[in-house]
């Protein structure tokens, strides 16, 4: 144990030396090691912050990316809206308008319906008119027939053809015969033929054919002429049945004057298209000075009144007078010319 103690005491010296050398080393290296530690720490811290910053950058980029994409798409949608409207407008205006065409087709259908209805109505109307006309013609024919066959009317003694005693009621023709007034048939069958369109001109032919067959035309019926200053029967007949020949005064309407004035005004309005007519050289003579006649003694100019115009220059003279009539009522002098029964005035 003493040996150990001596060893230990030696050791203490060595330990103290070691302690001091180690402290000295530590002191010498302290700066270096401190700086090294600081470097390491600073690098590490820097790396940490950089990593954090880049992480932040990345996140910021993501957010910006999303935001910008959103904005661009929103903008895109807005521009698409505008482009959509523009393209629709352009196509409709310059290429083809579907709605206008659809409206046109619908309008066309309506118009067709309308036309079809109108046509049906019109054809109905015309059919009724034609039927009406046909019926009227029938009626007319039957009336004419009844008039001409009036002798078939039944009498008290003897029932007519259309009034059979075996039937309960007389025939329609019988009633018609009772209603109408009798009328003898028209004079000559020749006139009837020509009315039917027979084109053979037969002015003398019927009489001449009759003569060719040997028959003579009948002599005129002798009428005893009444004694006295009577005029010819034909003349009197013509006079009695003379048609109305109104005189010119009667013919003209009461407003004839106004009508004539209106007509003149209308003509003026119609014809006068140019107020200042082009009359070349029309005023050429007006600028000419008056050349005196050689033999006159006075120097007076020709007076326009009496040659160029006839209007009164002094209004005092016109005070009591009425203005000129330019349109007159009719003149009655020749109304009776040629229409009197006497032969006066008929100059050969």
């Amino acid at each position, binding site marked *: 144990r003493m040996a150990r103690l001596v060893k230990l005491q030696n050791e203490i010296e060595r330990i103290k030396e070691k302690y001091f050398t180690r402290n000295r080393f530590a002191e010498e290296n302290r700066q270096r090691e401190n700086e090294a530690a600081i470097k390491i720490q600073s690098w590490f811290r820097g790396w940490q912050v950089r990593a954090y910053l880049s992480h932040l950058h990345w996140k910021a980029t993501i957010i910006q990316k999303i935001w910008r994409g959103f904005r661009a798409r929103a903008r895109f949608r807005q521009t698409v809206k505008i482009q959509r409207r523009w393209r629709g407008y352009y196509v409709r205006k310059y290429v083809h308008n579907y709605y206008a*065409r659809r409206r*046109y*087709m619908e309008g*066309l259908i309506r118009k*067709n319906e309308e*036309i*079809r209805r109108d046509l049906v109505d019109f054809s109905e109307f015309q059919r009724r008119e034609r039927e009406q006309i046909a019926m009227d013609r029938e009626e007319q024919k039957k009336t004419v027939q009844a008039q001409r066959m009036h002798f078939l009317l039944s009498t008290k003694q003897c029932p007519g053809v259309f009034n059979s005693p075996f039937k309960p009621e007389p025939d329609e023709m019988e009633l018609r015969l009772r209603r109408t007034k009798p009328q003898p048939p028209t004079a000559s069958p020749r006139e009837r033929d020509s009315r039917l369109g027979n084109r053979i001109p037969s002015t003398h*032919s019927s009489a001449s054919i009759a003569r*060719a067959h040997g028959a003579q035309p009948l002599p005129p019926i002798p009428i005893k002429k009444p004694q006295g200053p009577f005029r010819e029967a034909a003349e009197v007949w013509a006079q009695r049945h003379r048609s109305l020949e109104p005189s010119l005064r009667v013919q003209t309407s009461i407003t004839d004057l106004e009508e004539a004035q209106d007509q003149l005004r209308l003509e003026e309005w119609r014809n006068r298209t140019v107020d200042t007519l082009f009359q070349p050289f029309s005023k050429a003579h007006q600028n000419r000075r008056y050349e005196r006649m050689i033999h006159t003694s006075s120097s007076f100019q020709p007076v326009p009144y009496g040659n160029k115009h006839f209007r009164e220059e002094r209004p005092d003279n016109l005070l009591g007078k009425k203005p000129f009539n330019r349109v007159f009522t009719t003149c009655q002098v020749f109304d009776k010319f040629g229409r009197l029964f006497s032969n006066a005035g008929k100059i050969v």
Partner: protein
Amino acid sequence: MSQRQVLQVFEQYQKARTQFVQTVAELATRPQNIETLQNAGVMSLLRPLLLDIVPTIQQTSALALGRLANYNDDLAEAVVKGDILPQLVYSLAEQNRFYKKAAAFVLRAVAKHSPTLAQAVVDCGGLDALVISLEEFDPGVKEAAAWALGYIARHNGHLSQAVVDAGAVPLLVLCIQEPEVALKRIAASALSDIAKHSPELAQTVVDAGAIAHLSQMILNPDAKLKRQVFSALSQISKHSVDLAEMVVEAEIFPSILVCLRDPDEYVRKNVTTLMREITKHTPELSQLVVNTGGVAAVIDYLGECQGGVRLPGIMMLGYVAAHSENLAMAVIVSKGVPQLAICLSEESEDHIKAATVWAFGQIGRHTPEHARAVAAAHVLPKLLALYMDPDSSEDLQIKAKKALKSILQKCTHLPALEPLLYEAPSNILKHVVYQFSKVLPHDSKARRLFVTSGGLKKVQEIKADVGSALQEYINSINNCYPEEIVRYYSPGYSETLLERIDKYQPV
């Protein structure tokens, strides 16, 4: 006394002549007597009577001659050869109105048979004399002269030009304004005959102011007059766009549509002819007609009439539809397609069927909508049948083929195309299959329908040359379906399946 006896002889002779001439004239009204009269040498007997002193005999003999010449062209030639015409022409200027009527009747009867006879009438100066008689007061004389001029101008353009050169047109236009209906009729028909040959002649008629007067007579109650008026207007308007525009400017629409309900059949036919001549020129004119409802009126007209008179109506619809697809849609919207389909099935004449087929082609060729409307009326099988029928004329077959092709190129309505798969010959089948190959890749419902209705089976059965267009289309159709289905429907699949049974070894 002896003087009286001498005069009596003359009187008897005159009576004899008069009686002869009147009896001949009456006999000549019946056709069965004319042969006998001709054999008896009536021409040579009537000729000297034309120069008779008594005016009645002259007139009646001229009338008899006219009736004889009217009957057939041998007698008319005999009149020409017998040198009667110069005498007639001379007296046309001189004599009274009955003789003028009779002489004009003879000229008309001679001129109506053939162009050579009409030329003979023109050569002996008949035109000037007729034009002079057009200036007469008597309406009967004017009518006879206008009739003769109309018959002369009817044959060809040279004769019409001769009539126009004689200055007849303004006088005819004056005749139209006269109150007598018969005269109006004849003058309108003469103007129509003049205007029909060439645009210059039609322009001459128009320059005389005929259109205004003709259009005023559209609503006249007389049916024959209306026939002639419409015929005249259609002859004028058929030549060029300007003339058609002038006719339209006379404001005939829409009052013309009323005449489509006239009881007279020929009035209606002439109205549709006029509308056809107007619409065929430009789309604007067709548009005008459509806007006034003309298409609907014509379609109703087609529903009411039968036979050959339908032809102008059908052609009018075809012309309207041909101009643009708007107008074709207007025809479809006015229910034109069912009516045309009825016409196609009812009519038996080939030219009417050809016109209907052409009209369908014009309607259906514009867009798929139009083709669908045409196909929906079950028209395509009928067109195919007409094309394949050996009895149809060549014209009908060509038109049916063209119409089918033009409709098929736009048709996307598959149910209507399917019947065609079964019956069509290869040149039509090519188009049908092409349409299928265009539509099927995009529409799944259509694909399903195509399979269930047996169309795919039919397509597999079609034999086509490898490398041809038909094979390409078939391939594109087959590509729309999964392979098993294609194999299932290919011909002979049941045999291959059965062969597999033979080869199969049971486990």
